[in-house]
């Protein structure tokens, strides 16, 4: 074998291109995959969980269309507060502005901070359930032994699909005492 190869090809181009792919994929996780997940969640309403404040809309109230809205409360993991809806159920008419509230009491011996996370069933109704005021928008501190009523004002968009007759809204209460002060990540 006497044949000589051409001058060895430079590996630099291949290595740099590959490294660019690697860096791009890391950025992809943080800046594309994660935002895309939230965009899809928001668009479909699938998690039933919106934190956005909605403006009250001047809808015409559909008095002939009663929608049952049920309220549930769950304590997450080790959360020790008493937490329950004041009204477990209301009849809402699309377009109506309705105020309800949840009761919370910190029966523990230490001062605590809580965060409520909403979830709504059926998820197809999520984007038609407008919360103009919600205690889930903010963290709730309570001193030991203190209690409070936390408000929720909502309005149902009259475009709500016809088949939806009942909406169930559940709040999970998380203990964020150690993590309080940490801002919720921007979506």
């Amino acid at each position, binding site marked *: *074998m*006497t*044949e*000589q*190869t051409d001058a*060895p*090809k*430079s*590996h630099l181009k*291949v*290595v740099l291109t*590959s*490294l660019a*792919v*690697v*860096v791009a*994929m*890391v950025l*992809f*996780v*943080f800046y594309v*995959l*994660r935002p895309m*997940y*939230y965009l899809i*969640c928001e668009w*479909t309403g*699938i*998690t039933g969980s919106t*934190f956005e404040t909605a403006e009250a809309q001047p809808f015409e109230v559909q008095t002939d269309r009663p929608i049952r809205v049920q309220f549930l409360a769950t304590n*997450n993991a080790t959360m020790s507060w008493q937490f329950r809806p004041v009204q477990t159920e209301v009849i809402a008419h699309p377009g109506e502005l309705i105020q309800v509230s949840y009761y919370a009491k910190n029966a523990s011996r230490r001062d605590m901070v809580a*965060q409520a*996370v909403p979830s709504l069933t059926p*998820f197809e109704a999520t984007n038609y359930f407008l919360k103009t005021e919600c205690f889930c928008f903010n963290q709730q501190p309570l001193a030991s032994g203190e209690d409070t009523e936390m408000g929720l004002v909502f309005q149902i968009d009259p475009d709500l699909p016809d088949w939806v007759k009942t909406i169930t809204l559940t709040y*999970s209460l*998380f*203990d*964020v005492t150690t*993590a309080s002060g*940490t801002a*919720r*990540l921007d*979506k």
Partner: protein
Amino acid sequence: MTTTTHDHHDDHAHHGPAKGLARWLFSTNHKDIGTLYLWFSFAMFFLGGVFAMVIRAELFQPGLQLVEPAFFNQMTTMHGLVMVFGAVMPAFVGLANWMIPLMIGAPDMALPRMNNLSFWILPFAFAMLASTLFMEGGAPNFGWTFYAPLSTTYAPPSVTFFIFAVHIMGASSIMGAINVIATIINMRAPGMTWMKLPLFVWTWLITAFLLIAVMPVLAGVVTMMLMDIHFGTAFFDAAGGGSPVLFQHVFWFFGHPEVYIMILPAFGVVSAIIPAFSRKKLFGYSSMVYATASIAFLSFIVWAHHMFTVGIPFAGELFFMIATMLIAVPTGVKVFNWVTTMFRGSLTFETPMLFSIAFVVLFTIGGFSGLMLAVAPADFQYHDTYFVVAHFHYVLVPGAVFSIMAAAYYWLPKWSGRMYNETLGKTHFWLSFVGVNVTFFPQHFIGLAGMPRRIPDYAVQFADFNMVSSIGAFLFGASQLLFLFIVIHTIVAGKKAKAKPWDGAEGLEWTVPSPAPFHTFDTPPKVD
């Protein structure tokens, strides 16, 4: 391909290997580094195997006999992590190091120093991971899929070491992959055109692209965990507005291509061995290449089939179900080609061929149970049961692991210059074959009957099949000691091997003497 007789009187230009430990520590030689990778993965195979034996011993009978449930969870987690990242992946990188330069007629890998680095960070990663077993709070106990918040809010303190170990493994894999890509793109011998590349080289090239695409995703997801645990972010913490389901999406966006990273090189191995022992050319070479590329592409759009039960919308279930079933088409093309290669061939059944045929049969069984799992409505029943365990062990053990064993028997004469003992090899095969099936086949039944995975105790109606499964596992585990013996026996006392010990084998690797000299193809061979 022409055969070339390589001239080995070029000692003036090259010194031989360094003496003693320095040879291995500072090696930039693809053969030495390949050997290091292979021995390392062999060691991890036994470590992960010991964890598996603990699991099967505890499950031998219902009730809690040997270990605490908390320790059992650490065993399932460590078994999965060590086998995936320590045994299977480094074994294939070792094979790539040894064989790719020999197969394409290159003198070494493209980036020899990076090659050294990518190997030598691995022992540190696994030492760190294994050391968590001795830490307060124990080793990671959240399963190899480390779903948040189990792996964040509720994780033992050792999770931080786990995260850094995964970072190091990822860096190693990325460097290894870049090396493979640069080698295959730039260093093919003259005349070695794309469609003449041996299939093992093709499958590794595609695997390397998968690696550089998804290992950064894995690094990203563990970095998010690290930030959630230590820096107060809430990527996966619902209380802070994050989402545990996001974790699963990001993890499986890595995790599904990862399973093809573990099987595509196996396809390459059996595509080399089956033609050699059928004494025929591989049937449908180009369709094999396109099928491999199709599988790689599809692997990016099927990840949510691992998550059918988290509550994705109906349209999503439908899309991921159909996309997943689509993978059966290129995989079916491959199985068809292997079977057709054997059809009317003059077959002989040496150990590498036995492992390869078992691969085709048993991997196909694993593929079929995968199709069952792909059916979204059915998956609601199968999800997180032993049926899933049976499925992925069928594709990984008699799939990936059998192909690695086949490769070891097939190329051991080239690596060591000596033949293994055929009787011992066949004994090892039959023990492994029986062991694997006795272990994992009953797991289909107990899974369908409803036994959940990752539990240390179970309802009594599953007792018989679990005992059978454990006996199979002990048999399979013990027969790997025979494998270790065979490898050592070959290296120490095997009969001298010819340059081409398999008369039907093809490829440039058989044109160099056995054992392959320290430096090969300094002058590139001519391929026509």
